[in-house]
C-alpha cells in the first residue's frame, strides 16, 4: 500500500493540511452551489463576495441608503426606487453597473455622492448583490414565501348560520365535521379542504362509471378513463374493461366531489371567510 511508505510526520502534516482545507472545501462547495443557478430565473449566479465585505456594506447601506431605499431595498414611493427590480442592479456582476450609480455619476443622482472611499462603494454594491440573490422565482421579493398573515377574517356566527342553512343536508357539526378545526390545524388548509370537499393527505373519493350498451347488462366500476370514444372501468373483481362508445352507449360518471365543485359559483367571499371562521371552532 502506498500509505505504508509515509513517515509519521508526513501523515501528521497531511492530517493538518486536511483539517486546514476543510473550511476551504466548504467555501468552495458553497461557491459551487451558488454558481449553479439563481432561484429567480436559473441564470448563472454572480461570484460570491466575502462575508466581511457584505457585512461592511450592510452597515454602510443602513447608515447612508436605507432612509430612501428602505431596509428591504424595496424603496420608498417618490423618494427612492426599489433596488431589487432595477435592471442596473440585476445585471451587476462585480460593481461595473452598481458602483457608478452609488457614486452618483449617473444623471439625476447627485444626492448619491455620499460615499467617497472606493472600498465603501464596492462594499455597498456587494451588499446589494447579496440581497439580489434572495429574489425568488417569478421575481418574488426576498422572504415572500415565508409571509403568512392570519387568514381568519370571517365571522363565526354568520358562518354557523350559513353552514346550518346550506351544508347540513350532507354534513353535520357533530358528525363528519366533528373536531375538523383540530384535525386540520391550518385555517388555510381547512378553507381549501371544505371548498374542495377533500384535502391533501386524505384519499380522493373514487369516481365510478356505469356503462350501458344496448342489449347488454350494465357495466359498473371505478372510472379509469373516459373520453368521447372509449371508457375504461375497473370492475369489482379487480379486472379492467375498456368499452368502445357508440351513439347508443349510455355513460354515467359519478364523481362524489362534483356537487362540491358545482357550489363554487355560488359562494361569496364573505360566505367562505365566515364558514372557515366557524369550522375552526369545531375542535
Amino acid at each position: 500500500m502506498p500509505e505504508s511508505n509515509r513517515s509519521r510526520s508526513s501523515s501528521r502534516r497531511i492530517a493538518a493540511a486536511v483539517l486546514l482545507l476543510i473550511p476551504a472545501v466548504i467555501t468552495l462547495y458553497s461557491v459551487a452551489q451558488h454558481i449553479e443557478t439563481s432561484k429567480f430565473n436559473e441564470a448563472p449566479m454572480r461570484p460570491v463576495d466575502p462575508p466581511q465585505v457584505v457585512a461592511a456594506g450592510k452597515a454602510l447601506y443602513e447608515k447612508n441608503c436605507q432612509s430612501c431605499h428602505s431596509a428591504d431595498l424595496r424603496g420608498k414611493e417618490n423618494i427612492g426606487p426599489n433596488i431589487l427590480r432595477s435592471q442596473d442592479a440585476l445585471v451587476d456582476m462585480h460593481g461595473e453597473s452598481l458602483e457608478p450609480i452609488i457614486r452618483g455619476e449617473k444623471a439625476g443622482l447627485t444626492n448619491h455622492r455620499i460615499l467617497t472611499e472606493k472600498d465603501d462603494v464596492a462594499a455597498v454594491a456587494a451588499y446589494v448583490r447579496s440581497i439580489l440573490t434572495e429574489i425568488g422565482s417569478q421575481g418574488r421579493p426576498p422572504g415572500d414565501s415565508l409571509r403568512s398573515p392570519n387568514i381568519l377574517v370571517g365571522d363565526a356566527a354568520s358562518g354557523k348560520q350559513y353552514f346550518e342553512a346550506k351544508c347540513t343536508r350532507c354534513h353535520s357539526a357533530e358528525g363528519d365535521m366533528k373536531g375538523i378545526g383540530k384535525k386540520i390545524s391550518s385555517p388555510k388548509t381547512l378553507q381549501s379542504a371544505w371548498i374542495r370537499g377533500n384535502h391533501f393527505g386524505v384519499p380522493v373519493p373514487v369516481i365510478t362509471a356505469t356503462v350501458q350498451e344496448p342489449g347488454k347488462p350494465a357495466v359498473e366500476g371505478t372510472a379509469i378513463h373516459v373520453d368521447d370514444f372509449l371508457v375504461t372501468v375497473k370492475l369489482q373483481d379487480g379486472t379492467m374493461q375498456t368499452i368502445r362508445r357508440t351513439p347508443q352507449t349510455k355513460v354515467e360518471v359519478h364523481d362524489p366531489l362534483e356537487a362540491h365543485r358545482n357550489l363554487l359559483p355560488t359562494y361569496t367571499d364573505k360566505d367562505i371567510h365566515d364558514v372557515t371562521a366557524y369550522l375552526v371552532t369545531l375542535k
Partner: protein
Amino acid sequence: MKLRIFSFTAALLLGPLSHAQSVTHEDLMRPLKDSWLTYNGDYTSKRYSSLTAVNRKTVKNLGLTWIAKMVPGNEPAPLTGYSRVNAPVIVGGEGTEQRSTRGGSIKGTFLENNGVLYVTMPDNVWAVDARSGEVLWHYFWKTRGGTHIGNRGVALWHDYVFFETPDNYLVSLEAKTGKERWHRKIANVEGGYFSTAAPTIIKNHVLAGVGNDIDAPMFLKSYDPETGDLQWTWYVTPQNPGDPGLDTWKNLDAARHGGGGTWVAGAYDPETNLYILGTGNPTPSWQTGLRGDGDNLYTCSLVGLDVDTGKMKWYYSTSPHDTHDYDSAQVPVLVDGTFKGHQRKLVMTASRNGYFFVLDRVTGEHLLTSKLSDATNWAEGYTEKGAPKTNPAKDASIGGTLISPASGGTVNWQPPAFSPQTGLLYQYHVDSYSLAYLTDPDPRGAMGLGGKEEVGMGTTGSYVLGIDYKTGKPRWRRKLYGTGFGGGGLLATAGGLVFTGDGSGSLVAYDAGNGNPLWSTRIGSVSNAPQTFELDGHQYVISAAGDTVYAFELK
C-alpha cells in the same frame, strides 16, 4: 465534357429543389395550404388549411405514418427509421457549462417547407424529414440560463431558420445544414428576461418578443434577417417623460417597471402594414400600490404596430388594470367578414381573462365584447370603452378571494383556429377557480408575481368552444375530459374539421360545424397545436405529445 453534362444534369435536378427551399416574401403572403411557413400558418393567424383530402368523411381512415422522438441536449440523436448514420449535432451558445435542458416537451409549432419539418424544444432545433421522421440535423444551444418553460418554434426566411432561446438570443441558422449564421442578444438573462416566442418574419423584419416576471420593461425588437442588425424597439409601457399612456400609471418609475410581455406571435395585415399582437400583464402582477388605479397601458392590450417603424397606430385594452396575471398574450386572428350587415376588416381574440373581443383592425375601433361563461367573476360590468371592468373586491385578499378563472386563464398561450366555412373561432375554455391570498399587505405592493399565494380549487368544466364572432356566443361547446386545456392549440381545415388534443390523452378531430367527435387516436397528452401539410399529393396531419412527433396520413 462528361463532367459538364453531369453538372448540367445535376443543375437541372437540384436547381428546382434548392430554389423551392428558399422562402420568399410572396410565399409568406400566401394563405395556408401545402406548406406551413410561419407560426400561425399564415399572416392571418387563422390556422385554417384549405386542404380537403382529410375531411369529415375520410378522417376515419387517418392512420399513423411515422413517429420521431426528439432527444434534446448535446448528444448524438438516436438512429431513427432505417438510417445507419447519426444526424449531425451542431453546438452553439454562450453558456460555459453543460446544463440539463428542462421543459423537454414540444410546445411549439413546426414549420414545414419542401419536405423538411423544423421542430423545437427550449435550446434545441431539429430539421426532420417530413416524409420519414428522420432527423436531418440537430442544433443545440448551450444556455446561460433563463426560465426554460417552452419554445414556440422557428421562423423561416430565404434559406435561413430563426429562433429564440431561454437566455434571450435570437439565433439564425442555415436551413439546409443547421450551421449557425449569427446570434444576437435580445435582452439580459440576469435581468429576469426569458424568451419563448417564435419569431415572426415580415418583409425584411424579424420580430422577436420577450417575457419577464420581475417588474421589467418589455419590448418587441425588429432585426434585419440578413445581417442581424437591430432595426427598431417598441416598448410596451412608457419609458420616458411625455410618452403616450404615461397618465395611466402612477408615475414614470411604475411605467418603466410595468411589464407587458410580448411572448406570443401576432398577425400581420399587409393592407395597413400593421403587426397586430396581444401584450402581457402589468407588473407587479397582483398588487397595484405602485401602479396606481389606471389602465396601465399598453399592457393586456391588442396593439397595431407599423411593421417598418415599430410605431403603434392603435391599441385596445382587453384587460385594463389587470390584477390577476391575465396576460392578453393570445394570438389575434384576422378575418374579413360581415359584422352587423357591413363588410369589415376584423381582428378577434379570445382572451385569457374569459372574454372575447372583435375590433376593426384598420382603426382599432371596438365592435364587440362577450363573456364566454358565467363562471368568470373577476370583473363587474364594462368600461365606457366596452372592456371588462375589473372589480377591486376580486383582488387577492388576506382571507382569500375566490377568482375565476384561476390565473392560468380560461385559455393561455394556445393558439386558436378560425374557419371561414363556419365563421367560428375555435378556442379552449376552462372554468377554473382558485383562492387568491394576499400575503404581503405592504402598501408598496410586492414585486413580480410575489405578494400572494394562489391555491387551486378545481374546475367546473373544460371545453373547446366554436365562437360565432357575430354574436360573441359559442355556437357549440365540446366538453373535454380533463381539467385543463385540451392540448397546445387548434387547427381548422377546409375538410370541415377541427383538430386538437382532448385533454385526456388523445388527438381528436371534431366536426367544425357542431363539435361532434369524429376521430381519435391515443398518442398521449397533445402538447402542441396539430398541423397539416401536403407532400407528393398526400395530406399529412402532425402533432406532438411530449418529446415525440406523430405523423398521420389517410390509409
